[in-house]
């Protein structure tokens, strides 16, 4: 499988491996701290379980590295089709319970939505790396959007909006990397900026001035620029009008859907306790296994979504920044790899993997400090949970896979 003549291992690959295992270690310690004092045996089993998941994940990573990149290219659409099929099965099979995220296969149960993340990266990479693609053409752009929107819709219906949004999050960075003209990116992003800005006259005015200046810089001529300006003015005028037509409960629903409305009893409580945990950690933290918020279980979901709060409380600013910098290095190295990989497919796969990891990292850590809505996105390598950990290890595997074969076309 692995032909050494094709392979060239660089320092970047070792760095990424080292960071990955360091993060795994940090996560295991945090999970141990969060659950070793708990009476319930199921929770106390978290640590050994996660240890096993980490081993299984490492095996998955190695296998992912060993398989030639071309295999992923060939298998990408199949994998995509398979994961869509699984998502549909999940929706249908779980119809008796309101939330259906799991599928049981023999003794294992896994979340198809997690593996769909990999499938979408591969499918997008394959579609966008085809030399016939022209990202100036609406049709190709639309298909690329469709590849991401299909799993988004299926996962959002589960309902699991937090995970679903990841599929959209991948889209723009990947498609831009693949060569979407900056002007198109601009056109896609601008209406959303205008929507948000339109609730205040001055911000709206400022947004429009910026749009006009940027349009002048793009030099696309009046025939294209003027409709864009007019369209955005229309968006800016209509949005507040429509918004004010809505009932309070409708507004509430939309804000909740977007994750902007914080429910004071549910997620609000979690965020407050998480901020208290992190803030009370101070510079050096309360000491490992000594965090009162953690050990007395004031922290909700402290081994899963809020595992970073444990680190923040027990190891303080120093520990938090250490872990954050590990994440940052991982992402920067991976972006560099993406730019060094000589084939388009591999480069796009790496970038997709980076985007997924980065999206999870920023949203999750942002959530623990109250900067992001509580979406239920776990933290790569640190949060407890088998499916997601294996997916993250596979993503690392894909990055290294592309990196060591970067000269192969």
């Amino acid at each position, binding site marked *: 499988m692995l032909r050494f003549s094709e392979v060239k291992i660089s320092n970047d690959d070792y760095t990424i491996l080292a960071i990955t295992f360091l993060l795994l270690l940090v996560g295991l310690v945090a999970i141990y701290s969060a659950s070793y004092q708990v009476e319930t045996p199921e929770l106390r089993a978290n640590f050994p379980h996660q240890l096993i998941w980490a081993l299984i994940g490492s095996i998955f990573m190695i296998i992912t590295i060993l398989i030639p990149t071309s295999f992923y290219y060939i298998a990408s659409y199949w994998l995509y089709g398979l994961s869509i099929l699984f998502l549909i099965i999940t929706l249908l099979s779980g119809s008796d319970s309101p939330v259906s995220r799991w599928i049981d296969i023999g003794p294992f149960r896994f979340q198809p939505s997690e593996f769909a993340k990999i499938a979408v990266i591969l499918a997008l990479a394959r579609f966008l790396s085809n030399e016939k693609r022209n990202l100036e053409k609406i049709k190709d752009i639309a298909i690329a959007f469709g590849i991401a929107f299909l799993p988004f819709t299926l996962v959002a219906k589960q309902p699991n909006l937090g995970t679903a949004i990841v599929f959209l999050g991948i889209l723009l960075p990947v498609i831009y990397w693949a060569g979407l003209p900056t002007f198109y990116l601009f056109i896609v992003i601008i209406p959303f900026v205008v929507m948000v800005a339109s609730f205040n006259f001055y911000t709206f005015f400022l947004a429009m001035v910026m749009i006009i200046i940027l349009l002048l810089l793009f030099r696309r001529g009046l025939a294209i620029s003027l409709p864009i300006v007019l369209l955005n003015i229309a968006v800016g005028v209509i949005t507040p009008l429509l918004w004010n037509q809505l009932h309070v409960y409708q507004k509430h629903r939309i804000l909740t859907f977007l994750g902007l409305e914080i429910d004071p009893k549910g997620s609000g409580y979690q965020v407050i306790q998480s901020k208290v945990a992190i803030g009370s950690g101070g510079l050096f933290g309360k000491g490992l296994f000594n965090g009162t*918020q953690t050990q*007395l279980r004031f922290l909700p979901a402290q081994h899963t979504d809020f595992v970073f709060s444990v680190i923040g409380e027990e190891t303080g600013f120093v520990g938090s920044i250490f872990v*954050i910098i590990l994440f940052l290095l991982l992402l920067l190295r991976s*972006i560099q790899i993406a730019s060094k990989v*000589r084939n388009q497919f591999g480069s796009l796969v790496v970038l997709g993997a980076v985007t997924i990891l980065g999206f999870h990292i920023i949203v999750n850590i942002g959530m623990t400090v109250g900067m992001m809505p509580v979406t239920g996105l776990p933290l790569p390598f640190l949060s407890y949970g088998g499916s997601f950990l294996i997916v993250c290890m596979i993503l690392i595997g894909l990055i290294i896979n592309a990196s060591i074969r970067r000269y192969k076309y």
Partner: protein
Amino acid sequence: MMRPIILIEKKHYLYSILVIILFLILIGRFFYLQIYKRSFYFEASERNRIREIVIEPPRGVILDRKGEVLVDNRPSYSIYAIPFEVKKADSVLKLAAQIMNMTPAEVKSIIRREASGYFYPVKLKRQIDFETFVRIEEQKLDLPGIIYQSEPRRSYPAGVRAPHVFGYLGEINKDELTKPEYKGFRLGDVVGKKGLERVYEKELRGLRGYQYVEVDAFGREIQRLKDKPEVPAFPGKNLHLTMDADLQRCIEARMDTLRGGAVVVDCKTGGVLALVSKPDYDPEIFTKPVPADLWRSMVNDPGKPLYDRMVQSLYPPGSTYKIVLAAAALENGIIHPGWKNFCPGYLSFGKKTFDCWKQGGHGELDLIGAIEQSCNVYFYKLGLRTGLDTWATYSRQFLFGQPTDIDLIDEKAGNVPDRAYFDRVFGKDRWPKGLVLNLAIGQGDLLVTPLQMARLAMIVANEGVYYPFHLLDYLEDPADGKRQYARIDSVYIKGISPATYQIIKQGMYLVVHGPAGTARAASYGDIKVAGKTGTAQNPHGEPHAWFIGFAPFENPQIAFCILIENGGSGGRVAAPIAREIIKTYFYGAEKGHAQI
């Protein structure tokens, strides 16, 4: 198959910069939370984990002068449920509800409303009766999660009611919480609401202690905090009263069906020996939450049982007040003691006729005789001679219009009408001069409390020396037995000579012991009693019956005032109660009881 890369080299810089910016924002946020706001969040986390457990000190008890316990504490039990335990089985709630005479739905709604954590006990019912307590205890094994905790509750073991004196406890209200004296109190705390419980709240209460325990997110106690030591509680001080339980019980029993009251004070100290106001209420009522309908019925009761008539009610003093006028006249040389007047049974003044109480009149009387027989006509004339101004001056000299400052609340000051008062009521100099005739016999706009009349009796008995009234003898610290006495400074009423007192006392002696005295029923045994009756006309029906006095005559030990609302003649109705008082106080309760 796979085509070579065609991307712009600069793109990865753009992506890297974007990632770095986002991470810098995160790092900034961590700096803000962990460095800049560290102490704020640290305190919040301490508040999370540390629970303060209040240790209620035992409330001081109240004892009489001989050390008999009048107001005590007894354990009472409240039933609590621990939500986490109770939720496990429906049968527990059902059984508990049945024992407490509640429906399971009621119990559930209380738990839902009050629960503040899985492991915080929720109070289901306050002060259960003994039977309920026994049943809970018996079925303990079937009631996991149902617990009881003891709460201090007052009891009155001596059989002394005196509800107006003792007052009662109740949950602090929002108004009280805003007052500085209740700083540090919390809603739901039990404090003295009336009477001594209120006046000596601070002393009785003691100092709360605190324990600090570490709790987890479910409210379960994990451990005692080692770094925060326990603050011990200090028990409240015991109140030793000047009250004589035997005397108090005796008067309460004697006056049980009457409307009025009596006050007996120690002439040598000003200590109150008995203070009875009737109708009253059973102090037991307030030891548990008072049902709304019972409270309403007490408030609306025409007998006004909640009022302390001795302290809070104002009455015209009637003939008892003739003492004040006699003193004013003697001191100003308006008459000499031998001055005589003929009473035909009435006095014509202007167009009006003022009657004496005795039809046909008393005939010729001197001052002592007029006091003995309480002749109105004599005092009408004395009033006319003395005049309003002098009368008012001497009324104030005897401290009327001033509260006694006894250690109770809501005491009234009364009213001594004078020139300025009548000018205000009628217009300047437009008031009828005949008013002074009414005032001379203690009628009209003159208003006094029974306490003030007892004070007058004491001043006469002591010939000018007055000891401020008080119920508290001393505070005793139960921990070390240390006593703390209130400082009582005697007051000397100036401007009245011993000779004047001698004449008045002579008259008062004859009221009880003279052949024509109005209160011959007041004496008992060998004890010589001096007194003065009063029969005060009032718009509410029968006149109020008064009797004030002191005993023994030679060396006064006690002074008293008895009032019976709408009781009729003071000599006939009030004086026999004085006899009861003398008998009990000087001959002892046993003998007193035996002879009733």
